[in-house]
């Protein structure tokens, strides 16, 4: 385990060192951005609308029964932007994009494509890792902003149309605007950026260290997704604690 952590930190450090190559690798970064956006946008919409909806459905009736229905917008707004959107989207992207990264790089490793790159003096970190890490670090926060907006909309819809809640659109968003500030959204976006770097590094590392044949690729994909999700949840607690202390 400690060897893995060390290798991932070394990979992160080398990727940071390669950042100045980003402009040269812009075509690959754009390809990856398109891949991530194309693969995730619809799922982001569906996931977010239901996340917003379900949190409203769970908390709305309880608040309304106690005469606190006017606070629903703020509660849903803060939950979605500070916690649910960054964490759920990061888990979704780890499963959808991280697994693809680990599988693609893993199969390149198994079928000697990475060795071929090295014989041509092409650094696999510049060629494979950098574009993926940069693309996911840009795409995930953007998807989280999109998810936050859709999540709020889903929450407002349920609040307005569920007869046990019946909080109007206007009342929901008025309270949301009152309680949610720019820094709250920034908090979620910053979290998602850190999660994105973690997903990118963990999944690329698993791909680069794949051994064996197709079974090895499968093992790498599983490890990449599980390790990413575990790290996201641990880091979520740590970051939340740090942000609370900063508040």
């Amino acid at each position: 385990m400690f060897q893995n952590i060390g290798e991932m930190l070394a990979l992160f450090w080398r990727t940071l060192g390669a950042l100045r190559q980003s402009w040269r690798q812009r075509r690959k970064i754009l390809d990856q951005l398109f891949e991530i956006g194309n693969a995730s946008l619809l799922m982001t919409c569906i996931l977010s609308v239901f996340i917003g909806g379900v949190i409203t459905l769970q908390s709305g009736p309880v608040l309304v029964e106690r005469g606190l229905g006017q606070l629903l917008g703020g509660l849903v707004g803060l939950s979605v932007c500070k916690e649910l959107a960054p964490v759920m989207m990061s888990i979704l992207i780890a499963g959808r994009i991280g697994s693809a990264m680990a599988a693609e790089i893993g199969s390149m490793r198994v079928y000697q494509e990475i060795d071929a790159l090295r014989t041509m003096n092409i650094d696999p970190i510049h060629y494979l890792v950098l574009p993926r890490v940069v693309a996911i670090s840009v795409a995930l926060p953007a998807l989280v902003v999109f998810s936050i907006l859709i999540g709020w909309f889903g929450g407002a819809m349920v609040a307005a149309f569920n007869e046990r809640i019946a909080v109007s659109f206007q009342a929901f968003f008025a309270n949301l605007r009152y309680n949610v500030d720019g820094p709250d959204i920034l908090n979620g976006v910053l979290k998602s950026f850190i999660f994105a770097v973690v997903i990118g590094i963990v999944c690329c590392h698993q791909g680069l260290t794949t051994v064996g044949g197709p079974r090895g690729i499968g093992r790498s994909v599983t490890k990449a997704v599980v390790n990413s999700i575990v790290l996201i949840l641990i880091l979520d607690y740590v970051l939340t604690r740090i942000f609370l202390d900063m508040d």
Partner: protein
Amino acid sequence: MNAPASNGHGVHVEVRDLRKSFNHEPVLKGISFTVEPGEIFVLMGPSGSGKTVLLKHLIGLEEPDEGEILVDGESIRAPGVMDKHRMAMVFQSGALLNSLSVAENVGLYLAEHRLKPPREIARIVAEKLELVGLSGVEDKFPNELSGGMKKRVAIARALVADPQLILYDEPTSELDPMIAVTIAEEIVALKRRLGNTSIVVTHDREMAFGVADRMALIHEGEIRLIGSPGELRDSADPVVKKFLTAEFKPNNHTQP
């Protein structure tokens, strides 16, 4: 058999007492040999004898536990030496990048290192593909090619760097006899045309004796014999003899 080219394009390779173990299991047990510039040197041996591991050491994909490899008298581990000499490897599987077209694969080295403008790269790619008899496949993807075509694309990709040393790993494995002959002829023709040094790992005996200037037999991580094809053929060493004369003898059971 094939006289080395005289234009001095190839490099001199020297391997000194190379040792490598994986999980405490010795794979290379003190390999030493030299390859002259412009020579085709064939490494033969049974599967698992350490041939591919040796080849990976020669191109810097593996680090030896002990020993060293010198190219034109300089250790390949010294800073800048690998950049100074142009080397290329043709992998057993071809190792083409499946997400790239044939043209992108062949031109990858030039494009990634920005050595030529795109139009010039396209011209060089077409020229190298023509050299290996594959004109017009630029836009195909590796999964649309046969095994022999993949190998020839891999050779074209290796040639783009104008290499002084080409390493071939089992270039005729998994190929039908006619394609295998074409690939063997290609290796000899390239050496004659470019004068590069070639090291070929194979257990295809016919191909080995057909292309080699000199050859060596590796057995259980050690070099058993080095010499000309004639010397190997005439060797009295039982291991060499067994490897070179192994044949399938069908029993004569008649079908009822």
